[in-house]
């Protein structure tokens, strides 16, 4: 299985997801929204976004291609590593 060029977009995506899980743009902001500081809402929403994008990463098959494997060989017990030549 050849890696897709479009999969590379996941690298900056993950970097952004990690970097902005910390609400840097709200540094020093003390507004309270719906009972909690606004920056806490940012963090909560961001982690929700992470879960959604992680699910997409898995579903798109990039999870397997990233390791140099076929996406369709991924489910169930048969997903274990198969014998064969080195792809890396």
């Amino acid at each position: 299985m050849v890696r897709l060029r479009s999969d590379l977009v996941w690298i900056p995506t993950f970097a952004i997801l990690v970097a902005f899980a910390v609400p840097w743009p709200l540094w020093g902001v003390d507004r309270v929204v719906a009972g909690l500081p606004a920056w806490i809402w940012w963090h909560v929403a961001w982690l929700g976004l992470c879960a959604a994008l992680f699910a997409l990463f898995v579903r798109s098959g990039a999870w397997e291609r990233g390791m140099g494997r076929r996406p369709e060989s991924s489910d169930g017990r048969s997903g274990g590593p198969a014998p064969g030549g080195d792809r890396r």
Partner: protein
Amino acid sequence: MTLGVSLGVVVGYLAVALALGLVAYRVSETTAEDYYLASRSIGTLVLLFTTFATLLSAFTFFGGPNLAYAAGPEWLVVMGTLDGVLFAVLWYVIGYKQWLIGARNGYVTLGEMLGDRFGSTGLRALVAGVSLLWLFPYVMLQQMGAGEALVGLTDGAVPYWGGAALITGFMILYVAVAGLRGVAWTDTLQGLFMLSIVWVAAAWIVSAVGGVGAATEGMLAARPEFGSFGGGTYTPGFIVSTAITIAFGVTMFPQINQRFFVAKSGAVLKRSFALWPVLVLLLFLPAFMLGAWAAGMPIEVPEGANVLPVVLNEYAPAWFAALVVAGAMAAMMSSSDSMLLSGSSYFTRDLYRPLIDADASERREAWIARIGVAAFATLAFVASLFRPGTLIEVGDTAFSGFALLALPVICALYWPRTTRTGMIAGVAVPQVAYLAVVLSAVVGAVPTLPRTVLGGWDVALGLMVLSGALTVAVSLVTAPTEEGDASRFAVVSD
């Protein structure tokens, strides 16, 4: 009367967990792969919760709210970022890769995997030795947490050493009989229990003080600086270095790293990965916000006590406070028994067998493992009586020590050109340097080396960079050894 109820709830809960371990023991086989890895048969729910419960220890349950109480709710962001996002990414980068090659080559421990790849017993022993070294303070942390928890719950009727001794005895017993299957089963029970109990506790306390808005108002009235993001303890340097060292450190924790080998299928790892950020948030949000809100409540937190039990004693009935403490003790226990179990596999497979007695029978190995667990836990118990730092400080030291292993391991996993000498240099040099920093604070005779520089940047972060740089640089100037075999780490696809 209340004392009896409290202790009854705590001990009763521990007994239920032990019973579950015994059932797991009945279905276990007597092979090492079953004892340590439950025959690589762990499904999504159990894998998710066993990793979850193992991650969440006294550090999260008591240390986290304490820090939020003292310094502000930003701890939620630090922990959420490192555990929910960065750890999840590493779960894929390190965990999935390890699962692939582990299932193919039958590895049980990290040291075994690296030792096999580089054909080096020395590297195998080095990785195991380093891991056991940093496991020690983390086991100690659980005992400190349990000791403090029972003091808080019983108003000092049970002394600190009593609580620490109770959990020590319990975890030795548990690990000795149950193996990973038992540990994983109780972790699932405890994970679900903790998650629900912390929400009930939050709902209870929040309604007692008049709602979320009122709780936040009270907090801001007492500590106005808690409302704005950053400031005080939370400098950018602190946030970034804490998040990075802990997240990388967690992946190298024996009990977490060994989880990467236990999944039944790749699908299990994928599902766990996608659920991770939400699950983490569900636990951290109520736990840490309770700590922060407590700053605005009319309570007195004694020196050295934990915030959470104090708040619960104030606003909830005794039996419920006891239930939460039982949940927290469960968290500590599931962390500790996983740690001890993994630690014993590192000890027997990577140190005892290769270095001392290669021909030991399975039976002998099993006994060595159990004696090792008992000795390790007892020593940690003795050390915990000295209470060498706060929960967060002790935990952070251990995390950083493990974090120094992460970059050399990633190098080995992804860069076939990595050499044995490169690995040994990349692991050993930063460890020695970090150990010098840590010990300089304990030994009175030498000047204390700084743990942080330039406003909160952890020296461990610099040493992490050093570990990666050394591994790469030394690998480039040395030749791969005869015994090394890069194809051991190749991922194959038909």
